[in-house]
């Protein structure tokens, strides 16, 4: 479902609305991805694109991932829809913008299973600790952040591909975690979040008692 709407200067575009049912949790979750894009008149005025993504909840398996084939096609179909919709409206289609496909999911994330811990790494170049907030409960993790990119004072811009952005990304974790034992580090523009799995999901060694004879 797509809604295009003019709100003053900003083009307000609700990109997708999906309803998912989690069999385990027996509840429905609605995923809304919202994009706010500044009106652009020509390629040259594209430079500082104000971009906002508000992903309320993404189930890990539904992410645009490298090792998931079907969501890739789903994403591709969505992009084609948007390409034609943008062309109809006379916009520069999103896939042809300079930042290309990268803007679709921001920040890009990888999730690893390290046995007793889960490790989530996110590419957040240019963001400092104070620009990031992480919230976690036993099943979901949300990372929020804001980055402002401005031409330095007194300089003219020849090329601007890095956009100011504001994001919120929620990830439904595959296992329950111990919220008290979540640590995050930021290095070289990569945010690494280590989450200790909850005790109840860790494998436990079962003692075998031999009946005394």
């Amino acid at each position, binding site marked *: 479902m797509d809604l295009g709407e003019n709100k003053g200067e900003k083009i307000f575009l609700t990109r997708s609305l999906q309803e998912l049912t989690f069999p385990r949790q027996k509840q429905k979750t609605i995923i809304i991805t919202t994009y706010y894009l500044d009106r652009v008149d020509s390629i040259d005025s594209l430079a500082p694109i104000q971009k906002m993504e508000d992903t309320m909840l993404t189930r*890990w*398996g539904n*992410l*645009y*991932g*490298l*090792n*998931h084939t079907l969501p890739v096609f789903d994403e591709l179909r969505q992009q084609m829809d948007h390409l034609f919709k943008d062309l109809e409206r006379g916009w520069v289609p999103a896939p042809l913008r*300079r*930042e290309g496909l*990268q803007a679709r*999911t921001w920040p*890009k*994330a*990888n*999730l*690893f*299973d*390290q046995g007793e811990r*889960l490790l989530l*790494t996110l*590419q*957040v*170049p*240019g*963001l*400092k600790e104070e620009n990031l907030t992480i919230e976690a409960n036993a099943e979901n993790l949300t990372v929020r952040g804001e980055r402002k*990119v401005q*031409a*330095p004072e*007194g*300089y*003219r*811009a*020849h*090329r*601007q*591909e*890095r956009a100011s952005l504001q994001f919120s990304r929620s990830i439904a974790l*595959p296992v329950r975690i111990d919220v008290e034992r979540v640590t995050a580090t*930021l*290095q*070289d*523009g*990569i945010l690494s979040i280590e989450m200790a799995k909850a005790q109840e999901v860790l494998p436990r060694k079962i003692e075998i008692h031999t009946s005394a004879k």
Partner: protein
Amino acid sequence: MSQTTKTAQEATDERFYATPSVDIFENNDEILVVAELPGVSANKLRIEFHDQQLTIEGEQSPFDREKALGLEFLPTHYRRVFQVQQRVDVDKIAAKLEQGVATIHLPKAPETKARTIQIKPA
């Protein structure tokens, strides 16, 4: 003997390169290049200025893909080359890397700086 020897022409670089996002600014004194290279540490970043060409190249630290539950990015090799029109004071090129963002200052050679010419009253 079926061993193939690669000739110079055949020996192409088989690596996949990603293009980092770049901002380019200019003022009277310098050209400022800002490149986004998440995951690249300072010792894996190479910035070269040669023959009026600025090369930015960086390698992301590798990680174990075996344990991945979901991957949206892979260890990437970044590379981007720019042809610089202006004369640059090569000895004064300075760069820093902060939060995965490289800032490169290319000071203009003194003779290419724009100067305002004072017109003397007759």
